[in-house]
């Protein structure tokens, strides 16, 4: 009977296509907006989640998110190093600088100063060169997107760059996850970074901490907080705090949520209404089946199969369009990298579509259960 149900569905070509397109549009709208939102939020925390070596981030108590920081002193770093359970603690500098390329290219850049000895905090994915190359005099590692903006031609090492009027030598090119802003990322040794920004009195933005083996990180975080009065967060917590800052303090969350909800409502109303009309138009045929002896249960399952087919085809079509859209957008330039359909978005959109189809089929099944087979006997 399920094949019959599918034939009934596809037999009304215009309505079938409209139903599938309705689901596809809804899928595309929801997945597209959710992906853009997730991409933007991921960018907000990318520079935190790329530092894999550290267990804890230590920062000023007033820091609410990654981009808004209060500098720390060298003494505070030493105090952290002296706390029991700390395996190592290294400074991380984060600031903005102006970079000039030899060809005249000029751009504001994110300058990340990493510990001279351990290089903790350098982007983990190298395209050309290695992290260790950062140790050469005036060596800097630049991200791929930044290199493409500041230099022309095939990426190569050895080129020079002027950072706040100081010389930097391209020692490596990395594939860093894009930051929230589209500024290029430049990694330098901590000592060089200090120099680039004029040797400030408080040179440290974050202290990155690794715990001793078998030391509970949350206890260690509490200990550091109690001893230094600083704020200590695990990288996941800090990333999440940064993301939530943008959600709460900008219109981004509300804006994207409204569009996703609109996608759901449009899907539910359009598909639900169209599916209901499809069933109403086939009411006489369903009444005939009921009179012949097809049970309500069988007919309900037929409707569910129809809903499943429409939902599955529409969902896949919508996802395909969405994936193509992001592939196209990424091809437009490096600034759009990082927008990809995640499995989380695919699953949650799938759940939303399943809900839409359940609503649509539920209404139709309710109508179907009330069909009086006697109506078939009336001319």
């Amino acid at each position, binding site marked *: 009977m399920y094949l019959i149900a599918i034939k009934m569905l596809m037999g009304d070509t215009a309505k079938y296509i409209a139903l599938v397109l309705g689901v596809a549009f809804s899928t595309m709208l929801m997945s597209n907006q959710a992906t853009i939102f997730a991409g933007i939020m991921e960018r907000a925390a990318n520079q935190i989640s790329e530092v894999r070596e550290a267990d804890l981030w230590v920062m000023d108590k007033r820091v609410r998110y990654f981009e808004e920081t209060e500098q720390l002193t060298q003494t505070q770093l030493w105090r952290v190093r002296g706390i029991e359970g700390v395996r190592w603690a290294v400074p991380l500098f984060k600031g903005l600088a102006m970079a000039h390329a030899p060809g005249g290219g000029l751009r504001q850049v994110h300058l990340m100063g990493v510990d001279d000895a351990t290089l903790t905090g350098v982007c983990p994915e190298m395209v050309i060169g290695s992290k260790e190359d950062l140790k050469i005099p005036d060596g800097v590692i630049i991200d791929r997107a930044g290199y493409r903006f500041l230099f022309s031609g095939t990426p190569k090492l050895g080129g020079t760059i002027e950072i706040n009027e100081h010389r930097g030598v391209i020692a490596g090119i990395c594939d860093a996850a894009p930051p929230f802003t589209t500024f290029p990322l430049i990694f330098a040794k901590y000592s060089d970074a200090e120099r680039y920004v004029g040797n400030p009195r408080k040179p440290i933005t974050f202290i990155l901490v690794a715990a001793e083996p078998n030391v509970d990180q949350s206890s260690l975080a509490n200990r550091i907080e109690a001893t230094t009065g600083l704020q200590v967060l695990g990288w996941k917590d800090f990333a999440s705090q940064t993301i939530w800052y943008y959600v709460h303090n900008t219109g981004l969350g509300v804006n994207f949520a409204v569009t996703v909800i609109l996608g759901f409502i449009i899907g539910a109303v359009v598909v639900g209404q169209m599916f209901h009309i499809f069933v109403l138009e086939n009411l006489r045929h369903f009444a005939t089946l009921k009179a012949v002896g097809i049970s309500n249960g069988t007919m309900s399952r037929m409707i569910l199969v129809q809903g499943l087919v429409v939902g599955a085809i529409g969902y896949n079509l919508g996802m395909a369009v969405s994936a193509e859209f992001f592939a196209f957008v990424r091809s437009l330039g490096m600034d759009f990298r990082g927008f990809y359909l995640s499995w989380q978005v695919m699953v949650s959109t799938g759940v939303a579509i399943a809900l839409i189809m359940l609503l649509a089929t539920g209404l139709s099944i309710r109508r179907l259960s009330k069909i009086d087979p006697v109506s078939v*006997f009336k001319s």
Partner: protein
Amino acid sequence: MLRNDIAVAVQSVTKDFPLADGSSFRALAGINLSVAAGKLAMLSGPSGCGKTTLLCIISGVLRASSGEVTVFGEHLGAMSERDQIAFRLSAIGFVFQQSNLLPALTARENAAVPLIAVGCPRSIALEKATDVLQQLGIGAFADSLPIHLSGGQQQRVTIARALVHEPRLILCDEPTSALDAESGHTLMGLLRSIAVQPDRSVVVVTHDSRITEFADLLIAMEDGRIKSAEAKDACESEARA
């Protein structure tokens, strides 16, 4: 007459429909009727006399307000709604006034619906449906969609759908009303020759006086009662008004 020779037995059946003002309308008033197995009974009468209501009660689509209906020994009134539906699917074939074929299915697929519904493998159901369509003279149109068939051909597909699962009772509601005289005559001839079997009966509700020649038992109804019953062979079929 042996009990299992009786295809349909209707005893003192009444049917009341509630009206909006709280009163009720009596559509059937104490119907007594029996149709023997292997016979074709025809119910006729003016519009609103209760023919279709009686057909619906015999099929279990409607429940009688009082009285008892037995189809091949099975008491419909004693069955739950679920059992009635299952009984309809297995024991009764329907030919409706309008063909009500599923427009997206071919003639063969439409005819196979009851078999597929009882769980018969699709290929076997389609094969059997093709055989029945051939018996009815429209084997050549087995793969045609209903929209490409004439009214008479569509009704033959409906008959095929009613016969394909070999039910013991065929109920027809005005099967010729949408056909011209010649097509109607041909259709009834086919119904008579193929549907009526020693262990199978046919009950036809009709307005069409041109087809009464095909009946073994001709029952005239009026105002919810049986006005007259004329059996061509009184030994095998009987009707009591």
